[in-house]
């Protein structure tokens, strides 16, 4: 039932529960606010949004006053304007007078509102707080003398990122936001995600490093180039310099939050160590070269190797950090221009488990649902990852669900994670035995008769065979294999199966294992068994290591799949491990690596790559891998090129060029295009958009995706429903292949892993990946955290 009120003499209607401010904003009536933010719970701290109820003359804080039928509200009466002016004057009376030199400048909302209200001279006794600038950390500068106590920082820290680092301290005039013990931020549990800095209306919180002072000229909306969350960021640009990054508006995966990498880590793009021109190795030393020289040399060498040893002696390695367009073009170059099946990409090893495990059971080899479903779930099963460092948006969502929505968290991890303290149940199976644990849980669910019978009988196939295959997973047997007490397995089984809706989140901790595909298949079985697929608050989330890990696989930078997971016709090519083996034995003679640094991640690969006949690396920096190359081609970073990234939720999102690449460096797709030209093959694209048009035409998975339709928050593939945002949640109308298929569990006690534990890089929120981006970020690399 709509509620009608009179707002500034005009009748407007809204829904019950709306505040006067909500309705005013919807009706285009401007009410100034300082403490209000749509991402935060309304608070009513600043009193700037006062409006007058004309029926009784009362002044109401519009951000916390619900609309009521027949209300007559004046947002600009004499009384309202006088109150707003008084409040602003009181704030200014205790605010320092140094706006002239404050870097918040015209972005300061206090100053904007004072100007709007015509407040100039403050005729109150001025009692400013003494300035006390705290800036020992490399990210955030605090000057609490400029704080107006709106509590946006406090609420953002509690409600959005759920760290609760700060809250009000003391009462009255001395009160201020403070950490426990009133310590500097760097001695608190602050993660420097920058959310508070972005929400602060005044100059109290600012980024410490200011490469530019004054107003910025333009804002470019793009996608963060770190992890697979695909946060939408606005890059503020001055000249050819990215000045700051802020979360974009819109229905994005990140809302008002980012992490320290997204907020501050982008400064690697302006590192003085960036490559600015092609390099050719002459007698062991790199010599600068022109693009023509470098590309002619690469074209000549590739042709030479191809004619001498066959196309199959060449291998290509795409990048989970480059755009879909870059990766599509690289595999096209490899398959169509060179004619080799040997194409792989960073992250494909991790995705292999999802391709086999999820693809086989459910149909699509990717997460089923948006991050927002995590917050609607009752039980969250988190397996083999610590999203607080690898996928911070997922970490925030889990913490919000547990703290504010009473969700129960089950952590399955052989290592300690940042979320263990939030967990209701923590299971630490022996590494490599996770599938046995999941099978044990499912056997208990079946034995207890608490599986989702109607879902299983209507929507799945293979249940009987699957159920029988679990016979070897009796509780005591599972306890023996995994080391997890059977009582705990029982608790997990009951908790998970009896939830109205539950989600499963898994990451590299299991996908990097040899039996990773078995483990993921078991998780898919668990979701099918409990009916947690295709509905709100349910689903499976396959976390990605890198910003475009899913996209690089989608684009067919895989030895066994063409773009869109169409099977290869003439036999699979070599994956990276195969390439390295064959390079060692001399069968792979030339390798082309785009935007990856395997030497930093794979032990022994440096030795092999240094012995290869011809190695081309295109990257931002002279990485450990690039140092071994015969030719190094300078590439553009995420902020310097157009294209799309596909995040782990399947959102295809727009990457936009904000600044020019340094020196002569070029976007990866243009380098490949030029190289194809040098080899006599025309790739007539004039923009990244034309490549996406070709992808949309050729790859069924990306059908209907075009730049014009990509709004903030992107398009979830597949866009078969014609919906502007694509398919947010998979399998709502059943499974593509008719049924969800249960896998048959084999009794397996093996504990072997792809990479031994001690060689798995330990990540922190400040350092992850292969040492290209974070290590080259001045701010991130200033932080040393022992792990």
């Amino acid at each position, binding site marked *: 039932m709509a509620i009608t009120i009179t707002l500034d003499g005009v009748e407007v209607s809204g829904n019950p529960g709306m505040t006067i401010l909500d309705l005013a904003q919807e009706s285009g009536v401007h009410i100034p606010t300082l403490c209000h933010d749509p991402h935060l719970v309304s608070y009513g701290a600043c009193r700037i949004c006062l409006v007058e109820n004309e029926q009784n003359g009362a002044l109401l804080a519009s951000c916390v006053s619900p609309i009521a039928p027949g209300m007559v509200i004046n947002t600009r009466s004499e009384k309202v304007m006088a109150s707003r002016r008084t409040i602003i004057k009181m704030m200014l009376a205790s605010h320092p007078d140094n706006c002239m030199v404050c870097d918040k400048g015209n972005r300061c909302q206090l100053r904007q509102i004072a100007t709007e209200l015509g407040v100039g001279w403050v005729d109150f006794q001025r009692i400013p707080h003494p300035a006390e600038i705290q800036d020992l950390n490399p990210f955030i500068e605090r000057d609490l003398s400029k704080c107006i106590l709106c509590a946006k920082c*406090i609420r953002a820290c509690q409600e959005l990122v759920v*760290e*609760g*680092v700060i809250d009000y*301290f003391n*009462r009255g005039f001395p009160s201020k936001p403070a*950490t426990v013990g009133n310590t500097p931020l760097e001695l608190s549990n602050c993660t420097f995600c920058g959310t508070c800095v972005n929400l602060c209306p005044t100059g109290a919180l600012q980024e410490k490093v200011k490469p530019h002072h004054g107003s910025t000229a333009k804002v470019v909306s793009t996608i963060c180039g770190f992890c697979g969350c695909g946060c939408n960021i606005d890059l503020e640009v001055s000249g050819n310099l990215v000045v700051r990054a802020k979360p974009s508006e819109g229905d994005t995966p990140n809302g008002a939050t980012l992490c320290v990498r997204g907020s501050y880590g982008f400064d690697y793009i302006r590192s003085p160590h960036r490559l600015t021109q092609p390099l050719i190795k002459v007698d062991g030393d790199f010599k600068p070269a022109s693009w023509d020289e470098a590309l002619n040399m690469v074209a000549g060498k590739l042709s030479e190797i191809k004619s001498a040893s066959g196309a199959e002696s060449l291998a290509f390695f795409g990048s989970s950090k480059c755009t879909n367009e870059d990766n599509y073009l690289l595999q096209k170059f490899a398959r169509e221009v060179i004619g080799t099946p040997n194409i792989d990409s960073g992250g494909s090893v991790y995705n292999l488990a999802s391709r086999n495990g999820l693809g086989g059971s459910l149909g699509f080899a990717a997460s089923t649902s948006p991050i927002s479903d995590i917050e609607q779930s009752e039980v969250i099963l988190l397996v083999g990852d610590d999203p607080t460092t690898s996928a911070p948006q997922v970490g925030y969502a889990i913490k919000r669900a547990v703290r504010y929505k009473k969700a129960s968290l089950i952590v399955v991890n052989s290592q300690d994670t940042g979320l263990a303290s939030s967990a209701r149940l923590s299971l630490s199976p022996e590494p490599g035995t996770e599938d046995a644990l999941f099978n044990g849980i499912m056997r208990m669910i079946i034995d207890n008769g608490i599986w989702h019978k109607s879902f299983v009988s209507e929507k799945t196939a293979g249940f009987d065979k699957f159920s029988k295959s679990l016979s070897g997973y009796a509780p005591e047997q599972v306890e023996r294999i995994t080391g997890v007490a059977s009582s705990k397995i029982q608790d997990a089984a009951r908790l998970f199966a009896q939830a109205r809706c539950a989600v499963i989140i898994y990451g590299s901790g299991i996908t990097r294992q040899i039996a990773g595909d078995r483990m993921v298949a078991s998780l898919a079985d668990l979701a099918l068994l409990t009916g947690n697929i295709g509905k709100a608050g349910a689903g499976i989330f396959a976390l990605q290591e890198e910003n475009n890990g899913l996209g690089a696989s989608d684009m067919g930078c895989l030895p066994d799949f063409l773009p869109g997971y169409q099977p290869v016709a003439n036999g699979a090519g070599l994956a990276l491990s195969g390439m390295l083996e064959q390079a060692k034995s001399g069968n792979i003679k030339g390798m082309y690596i785009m935007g990856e640094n395997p030497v930093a991640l794979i032990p022994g690969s440096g030795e092999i790559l240094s012995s290869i006949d011809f190695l081309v690396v295109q990257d931002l920096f002279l990485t450990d891998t690039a140092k071994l190359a015969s030719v190094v081609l300078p590439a553009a970073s995420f902020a310097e090129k157009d294209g799309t990234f596909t995040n782990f939720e399947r959102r295809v999102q727009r990457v936009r060029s904000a600044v020019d690449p340094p020196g002569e460096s070029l976007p990866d797709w243009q380098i490949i295009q030029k190289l194809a030209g040098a080899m006599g093959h025309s790739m007539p694209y004039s923009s990244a958009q034309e490549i996406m048009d070709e992808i949309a035409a050729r790859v069924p998975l990306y059908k209907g995706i075009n730049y014009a339709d990509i709004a903030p928050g992107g398009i979830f593939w597949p866009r078969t429903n014609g919906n502007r945002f694509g398919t947010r949640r998979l399998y709502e109308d059943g499974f593509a292949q008719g049924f969800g298929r249960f896998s048959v569990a084999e009794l397996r006690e093996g504990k072997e892993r792809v990479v031994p534990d001690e060689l798995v890089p330990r990540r922190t929120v400040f350092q992850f990946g292969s040492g290209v981006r974070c290590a080259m970020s001045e701010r991130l690399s200033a932080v040393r955290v022992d792990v």
Partner: protein
Amino acid sequence: MSGDIKAPEFDFDRLEEIIARYKGQKWSLIPLLQEVQRELGYISPAAIKPIAEGVGMFPSQVQGVVSFYTGLHTTPRGRNVVKVCRGTACHVRGGKTILKIVKQRLALEEGETSPDLEYTLETVACIGVCALAPNMVINNDTYGQLNPKKLNQIFSSRSRG
């Protein structure tokens, strides 16, 4: 606050018992803090984290509440809390001099606690017995119509007794 106060051991075992009793209760923070203060004398900064965990809040929130109320203390308090009234009536009747004498007598400034934890000196805005001004409260005893001689008697008898 003088730095050489040797605080008595804060009884963390007792703290855990108190927290356990309030666990899972709604709006339990303030009664819990009051009980900790009553039982253990003050709320040690080190107690903030376990209290926050017990009531499911962030430590910064608990600290915010503790620092908001003058009735809650994060440092040990004297066995005798002296509150000298600085209300209008007491002021007119010489409360300022009374405060000065008490400060000298106890060798304490406002808000301070003696190193032997015998006395804490505070001032209050009004205790509501203006007819007897100037006034002072020690623990639960109220002393009115004060003068220097009477003050001397009060403190002498307390230290004897």
